């Protein structure tokens, strides 16, 4: 790799300068401040905050529910995208526009809306109650809120990839004797897999960082329905900036690890592809 201008377009130096400047000012600097704040703690204090039972419980909920939400979105986001891309029906444009609503809504509004519906006396909640299913103020509610606010990422990531799957490929597979499921498994899925993974990653990242919508529906019982971002706010409210920074650092490291792992998986998939080709 070299820093020589890689294309005929001028202005590489200028744009690269802006890129590094912006990334530094907007992303790296705040992150560095976070690390610094946490680093000024005493080691035992740090361990005490980060590995307290309450913190461990919140990690489990935050990452577990996010993972679950992203998985749900992986499946249903794909189905929604498929419906929007492959079929033409009245109201298709409307539904397409509706997908982005969770983007535009203040997350607190989503949380309040969900609570209204799923609380014990809510529209749906009152029918679930006799069945012994409690949604609001349990981990189920948290997952639901995270699924809602991260759903657009999954749909929007898969949609363009599905558009690119040529009909001819399916036709070809069909004339070669493949049934629908076989075509889906061997032709469509491999083609959109990278997009699906991207959708999953984005959903997951969004869900981990979510705060506004969850606190309304979660009930926020320590150890049970308390997410890490909330724990951080609680620390802040007690003016324990260092504790908040420590928890923030843990989230940072864990999120980065997960995202990096998924990225590696994608690169690995591509490389395996090329290796198979070159051997």
């Amino acid at each position, binding site marked *: 790799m070299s820093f020589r201008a890689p294309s005929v377009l001028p202005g590489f130096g200028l744009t690269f300068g802006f890129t590094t400047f912006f990334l530094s000012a907007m992303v790296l600097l705040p992150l560095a401040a976070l690390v610094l704040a946490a680093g000024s703690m005493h080691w035992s204090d740090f361990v005490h905050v980060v590995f307290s039972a309450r913190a461990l419980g919140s990690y489990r909920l935050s990452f577990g529910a996010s993972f679950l939400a992203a998985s749900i979105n992986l499946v249903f986001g794909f189905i929604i995208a498929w419906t929007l891309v492959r079929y033409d029906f009245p109201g298709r444009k409307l539904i397409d526009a509706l997908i982005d609503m969770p983007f535009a809504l203040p997350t607190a509004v989503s949380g309040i809306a969900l609570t209204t519906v799923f609380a014990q006396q809510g529209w749906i909640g009152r029918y679930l109650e006799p069945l012994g299913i409690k949604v609001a103020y349990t981990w189920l509610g948290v997952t639901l809120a995270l699924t809602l606010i991260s759903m657009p990422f999954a749909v929007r990531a898969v949609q363009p990839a599905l558009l690119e799957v*040529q009909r*001819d*490929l399916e*036709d*070809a*597979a*069909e*004339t*070669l*004797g*493949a*049934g629908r499921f*076989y075509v889906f498994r*061997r*032709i469509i899925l*491999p*083609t959109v897999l990278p997009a699906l993974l991207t959708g999953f990653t984005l959903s997951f990242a969004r869900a981990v960082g979510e705060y506004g919508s969850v606190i309304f529906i979660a009930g926020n019982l320590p150890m049970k329905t308390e997410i890490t971002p909330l724990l951080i706010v609680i620390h802040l409210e007690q003016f324990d900036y260092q504790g908040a920074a420590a928890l923030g650092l843990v989230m940072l490291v864990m999120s980065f690890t997960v995202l990096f792992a998924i990225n590696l998986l994608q690169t690995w998939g591509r490389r395996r*592809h*090329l290796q*198979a*080709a070159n*051997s």
Partner: protein
Amino acid sequence: MSITLDQVTKHYGGVPVVNDVSLDIGDGEFFVLLGPSGSGKSTLLRAVAGLTGVDHGRISLHGHDVTHVAARKRGVGLVFQNYALFRHMTVADNIEFALRVRHVRGRVRRQRRQELLRLVALEGMDQRLPAQLSGGQQQRVAVARALAHKPEVLLLDEPFGALDAKIREELRRTIREVQRELGITTVLVTHDQDEAFAMADRIGIMNLGRLLEVGAPHDLYSRPATRFVATFLGAANLLLARRTADGIQVAGATIAAADRTSAENEHEVVAVVRPEEVELAPARSALTTNYLASGVVDEVVFTGALEKLRVRLDAAAQTPLLAHSGADGEAVELLQVTRTQHEQRGFGVSPGQNVAVGVRRVHVLPTPLSSFTACAASAQLAQELSREPLLTELAARMKTRITTRCEPKLGVAEADGETAADFVGTTVIASQTDCAHRAEWLLRRGARDLLVLPTGAAAPQRVLIHWMGEAARGATLAISASVLRHVPAEAVYVGIFPGQGSGGRRPHGIRELLDARSEAQVAHGLEMRTELRFGEVAEELARRLAESPAQMLIVGVTDLARFAERFRKLLDGGQWPVLIVHRGAP
């Protein structure tokens, strides 16, 4: 028969994209479906593959009706224009796809793959990805993949469309070799006539959803039956000529008619002169062939082996040459000529030079419609009539001309009345009150084909066909077939019998309908549906025409007695075009 299509029809949004196509393709035959884009050839191929359903008709493969069988169970191999290779799979996986679906064991798969790769000359490319191959190589892989499951039929949908000329030729040869080696029945769809000539055992030419003509390349080229085939397959000059007792009369030349002599009296025909059948000489006396006319060279283009010229014929009264569309869609009235190097050395020409033009060979199209003559009581009305949209569209599609004719006494009964006037081609009059009377007037004076056209009539979506009297049957069918080749409409033969349609008449009527249908199919290549009605002829036809819009009637008549009276309902102020075919007793 490997592939049998029986009256296959497919509509998209009410428009017939494939219109009543019937075809038999033999075992091991290489059949090429040739047509311009939008002619329905690809849709037909997809219907054979099972990827597109049909609205009407049947498709059989090797004697089994597969009309409602899913594509994956039809046992066909299909190759697409854009290759449609699975990009995330290696060449090996692509080729083995059909075998994996069928759970064929690995060893057998590998063996078959090697065999196929050798067949398409791609040995050792197993582990490449499609993206690492050139276009030609990718298409070879696609061919191998389509053959993996040993299909009984191979379908190729414009397989060379995306390749450059050199590769195209190479791949053509490969595919032809593979086809010969395997003896597999193959259908290739293309819009490229060179490709069709190079590969086909037989060619089927499609236009506007109809299969116009089927035949060996040479036969189709030298003896086309339709204007479309004559001009689409190679270049052709279309000329208006007259069939006389001596032969074919074109401008100055009378050429002995080699083909079947017609017992009918002298009439106008459309003649095809291929550019290579034209001879140029400095003077009439120097010609070795029939003198056609003199002309001026307009343009000379050197293309290597051949020289392409355009010659403007001298405007001797009226040029017999029918305008053809130039590359820019503009009408040109120039004679196309191609000459070999040998001819060029004998007599070199340059633009602006006067030449004598001769023709070696003329082919007369069996088409019964030659030209249109818009006829009205005044020149101005005739002019207006000649600009009717339906008429101009028909003439443009038939690549023929519209002339005008003024008959000041049109419809005026005179004592000396029925002197036969010289009517050539199809006479056209406007639909108006008392036009039944005018029609009779014209028919009695020798008009053979008469089109009664309402103002602003739209192109018909359905053409009703009927004839009164057996003498008009052949001509009516021939003219219907000719019209329907140029109009994307469905043909319906309406059989009408007197009475109520009870008792023994019905079976008799149905038999007659079936006879008519098979004659239309066999003798004129016209696929038509049939309807049985009972009642008075003109009344029933009028009722049928009134049932839905955008219909046209072609009716054959032999007897002109009480014509105006009988046809008043059909013609006077009618909303539909009626083409009257008059044959039989003059």
